């Protein structure tokens, strides 16, 4: 079932600024596959057909290092820390550290955000980043301070086999993003958000072949429906969307999806797929900074963030720059 964002009267969630970080160390898919024990053919198809060539890793860096690198690049946060009421850490994996380690609180303390309410947003897997932006808007809408801000963080360590590899589909790398969210901001205004949760696909697909087969069939249908729902909710058609900022699962699945929905594949920013791999919830925001750096986002450009998460969730968000 597709769930749309509830009306928030006149307030409009705005993504004020986005910063991203990817570690410098490049690791080829062949090296990753070697560590994972994949066969030659399982390895070759990533580069040959799926458009994945290398990922970024910081094997000596901590989760705090990863997230801090993104926050430290968010220049728009400097001097406005006291306005930040909420810090939301969106992540694909529900558990990433043992008690009593609390990276999020450490990060808040390090960046002058200790006063903020902080929490993790999860259970939408790799689509959780979009959920967190929506949740941030809802929290701000309920805040008595109209000038309050929220900080949405994404970024995870790829530290186990399941966290590094979806068989025949994707390889995960490390990357992080920090988004400053406000209400009534001039940009980038969130026009619509749609998300569909399909709990019948909750399970490890590599050991549940029947579920995996059904998921493969359902994936493009459900992601296309989420995109259509978000675009429709925004009162637009796909032709009004200038750019899709995707999750970086692989190039081929996006090419196939584009053909299904009738959207030009060259307007999906796929250039990071070969160089970063799939960075969990951070992809769409890393792609945002790439698009901004390349001048692809002009005032008035309507773009769509889209992501799917194992488990499964299919989400899309229409935003106006």
């Amino acid at each position: 079932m597709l769930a749309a964002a509830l009306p928030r009267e006149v307030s409009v969630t705005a993504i004020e600024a986005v910063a991203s970080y990817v570690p410098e160390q490049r690791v080829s898919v062949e090296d990753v596959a070697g560590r994972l024990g994949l066969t030659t053919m399982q390895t070759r198809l990533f580069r040959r057909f799926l458009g994945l060539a290398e990922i970024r890793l910081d094997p000596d860096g901590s989760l705090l290092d990863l997230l801090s690198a993104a926050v430290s690049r968010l220049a728009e946060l400097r001097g406005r820390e006291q306005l930040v009421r909420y810090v939301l850490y969106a992540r694909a994996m529900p558990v990433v550290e043992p008690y009593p380690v609390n990276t999020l609180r450490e990060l808040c303390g390090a960046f002058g955000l200790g006063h903020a309410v902080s929490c993790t947003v999860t259970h939408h897997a790799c689509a959780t980043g979009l959920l967190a932006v929506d949740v941030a808007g809802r929290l701000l809408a309920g805040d008595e301070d109209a000038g309050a801000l929220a900080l949405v963080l994404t970024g995870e360590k790829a530290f186990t086999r399941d966290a590094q590899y979806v068989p025949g589909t994707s390889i995960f790398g490390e990357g992080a993003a920090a988004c400053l969210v406000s209400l009534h901001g001039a940009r980038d205004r969130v026009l619509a958000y749609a998300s569909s949760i399909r709990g019948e696909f909750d399970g490890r697909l590599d050991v549940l072949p029947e579920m995996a087969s059904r998921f493969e069939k359902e994936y493009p249908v459900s992601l296309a429906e989420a995109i259509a729902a978000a675009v429709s909710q925004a009162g637009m058609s796909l032709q009004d969307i200038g750019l899709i900022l995707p999750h970086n699962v692989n190039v081929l699945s996006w090419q196939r999806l584009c053909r299904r929905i009738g959207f030009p594949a060259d307007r999906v920013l796929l250039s990071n797929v070969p160089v970063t791999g799939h960075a969990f919830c951070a992809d769409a925001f890393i792609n945002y900074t790439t698009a901004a750096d390349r001048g692809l986002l002009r005032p008035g450009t309507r773009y769509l963030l889209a992501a799917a998460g194992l488990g499964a969730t299919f989400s899309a968000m229409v935003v106006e720059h």
Partner: protein
Amino acid sequence: MDHQTLTSPASAELRPQVFDSISKLLPKVLGREIPAMSEDMKLMSELGMRSASMLELLLEIEDDLEIQIEVEDIDDAAMTSVGDLADFVASHAITDG
């Protein structure tokens, strides 16, 4: 699907080789013998193939026939039966020559 719809002479010439290659390589990719291979055999519903094994099969065919296959246009219809896949490969092949 009508398996006689290939238009390019080169593709039509390649088509029987592709079918033979699929027949030879499918057991290797699936890790089991396939009795009575036919054009109409359904790759997913009958043989239990998934997209990953389909891509592995395409890689094996590339190596076997020394061709490259453009996969950008592949869709569900192309992956329905053995014959459909043979049609797709033959019409999306780029030979080394």
